[in-house]
């Protein structure tokens, strides 16, 4: 199997889906000649032309809203928001329009579309190029929310998202774009939207994570293993719909849960995971459900030292694992 980076896997998925299905369009700022500011769409304009790889005006609501319209007509748009921090301008189109179209029309209209955005911190982007936004969307029925943590999943899940008949929010951990490498199967495949993935088996406690934090969680788990703590790591991958079964199954086995995300704590996605455990794993829990998240501050600062203070990392995760294991 060829090895590649996460961003290469994203690009391959787009390329192959554009080739496979002429209804697929790419819409976004600088996605054409520039090939995207992270190069996710590099080369696609040359291959598929201006009518399928579309440089949009600088207006996020329009990127999503025009995507909605194109999907109504039978296209399969993949809308790119340049940074997740700017998706807030499209919030109405995502939440009021895309998410509610199927329900409000009693199924007369459905929206096969994907909204991609790089998210997350650790790249010196400061308050407005580092945000995590998944919690806002994982609260909205009608959307699916997907976050890959490795190249294989990135490619397979993005293909599944493009083929899905519903609006799918696809958030890519930008710090991992070039940092995370991995093997990617040859040929066409997809990774189903829905199931979480146990990426490391263990018996003492379960760590639930996604995106870059999943990458870190595996590192922390390996180190904990060396210290004699057997950590199970679950890559949530699909945040909505929630894979309750996988979450519960893991805690049934280990009795302890640590949830990690780089989004701030209060009202973050981890709250839902913890709430599910508090309701449905009451008898299985041997310890409090722990969350390790960014503190409740309005952003990740530009200063390197302050950025590191805010972001979870393998060391902090290891510390939490040790505390939870001791409980």
């Amino acid at each position, binding site marked *: 199997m060829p090895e590649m980076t996460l961003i290469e896997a994203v690009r391959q998925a787009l390329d192959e889906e554009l080739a496979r299905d002429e209804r697929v369009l790419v819409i976004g700022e600088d996605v054409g000649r520039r090939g995207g500011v992270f190069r996710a769409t590099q080369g696609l304009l040359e291959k598929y032309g201006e009518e399928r790889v579309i440089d949009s*005006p600088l207006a996020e609501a329009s990127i999503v*809203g025009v995507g909605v319209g194109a999907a109504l007509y039978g296209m399969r748009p993949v809308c790119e928001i340049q940074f997740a921090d700017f998706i807030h301008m499209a919030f109405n*189109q995502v939440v*009021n329009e895309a998410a509610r179209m199927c*329900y409000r029309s*009693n*199924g*007369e209209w459905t929206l096969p579309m994907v909204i991609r955005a790089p998210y997350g911190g650790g790249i010196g982007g400061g308050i407005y190029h580092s945000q995590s936004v998944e919690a806002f969307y994982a609260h909205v029925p009608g959307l699916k929310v997907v976050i890959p943590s490795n190249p294989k999943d990135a490619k397979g899940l993005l293909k599944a998202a493009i083929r899905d008949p519903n609006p799918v929010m696809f958030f890519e951990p930008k710090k991992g774009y070039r940092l995370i490498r991995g093997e990617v199967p040859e040929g066409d495949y997809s990774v189903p939207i829905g199931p979480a993935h146990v990426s490391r088996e263990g018996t003492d406690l379960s760590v639930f994570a996604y995106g870059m934090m999943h990458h870190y969680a595996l590192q922390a788990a390996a180190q904990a293993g060396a210290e004699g703590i057997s950590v199970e790591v679950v890559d949530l991958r699909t945040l909505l719909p929630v894979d309750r079964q996988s979450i519960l199954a893991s805690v049934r086995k280990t009795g302890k849960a640590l949830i990690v995300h780089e989004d701030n704590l209060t009202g973050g996605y981890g709250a839902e995971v913890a709430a599910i455990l508090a309701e449905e794993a009451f008898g299985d829990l041997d310890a409090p459900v722990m969350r390790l998240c960014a503190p409740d501050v309005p952003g990740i600062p530009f200063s390197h030292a302050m950025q590191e203070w805010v972001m979870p990392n393998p060391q902090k995760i290891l510390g939490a694992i040790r505390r939870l294991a001791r409980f």
Partner: protein
Amino acid sequence: MMELTTDLKREMFWTMLLARRLDERAWLLHRQGKIAFHISGIGHEAAQVGAVFALRRGFDWVVPYYRDLALLLGLGYTPRDFMLALMGKRGERTSGARQMPSHWSFKAMNVVSHSSPVATQALHAAGIGLAIKRRGEERIVFTSTGEGSTSEGEWYEAVNWAAVHRLPVVFNVQNNQYAISEPASRQMAVSGAAERACGMGLKGVSVDGMDAPACHRAFLEVFDHVRSGAGPAVIETCVYRITPHSSDDDDRSYRSREEVEHYKQNDCLPRAEKALGLEPELVEELERKAKAMVDDAVAFALSAPDPDGPEAAYPVYAEDVRDA
């Protein structure tokens, strides 16, 4: 300029009349406590029939707004459909009674579902236009809003997209002079919505929306322009909202009775009767027919069952879609 055929004149008038009588009945039903909510198109009918009968119906796409009853009737939406929607009954065709009345959707006629937040649908129209252009088809997209809604950033973004990408979209602004209580002067510092167009580089047209044949001519011209690939257009139809904003509104706090009376004198329905040259006997016959259809629709909807509560559980995702 094409002469209107007698058939078309009759159909235009009939559609206006039917819309008016249905709408009036809705107000009556509301007063009787039989429905909870109505939002009216009274005063907008001439403009709407002008538009709909200039469209290639079932071929072109339509992204409407809540006052478009006459427009929808022109596309085949029926009085029974309307009454089911007003009463939120089972079989309601646009949303299975999930949406409030007058939130249209009619896939067979390429009418797209819209929501309540205003102006959001303008972007969908741009996206449909993009897809049509990509397919190289001859279709156009018609979308409508009120003049107040042109203050929304999303409306601007949509019109700008269409202008930049030369999309086959017609943005109709039904300027009825009010957004709930706010006069148009609180929405724009230009004299009308057509003027908005000049800042975005597309055709802008304004027409007396009380004059059905004039509207029809204006729409034909604009649709031709857009269909020919010459780029999108904004067309403002100058109408007046004769009723309060909705059945929840009381308009006495913000406009005088004299003003409303003044505009009633210019009511588009009698004007259309004259302008379209309808014979009094024909009008009487059409009135009888309209009344019968409205009566039938009300009776039909009153006797229709409510949806079951648990129908609210779906369809959240495309996988859950069932036949209503």
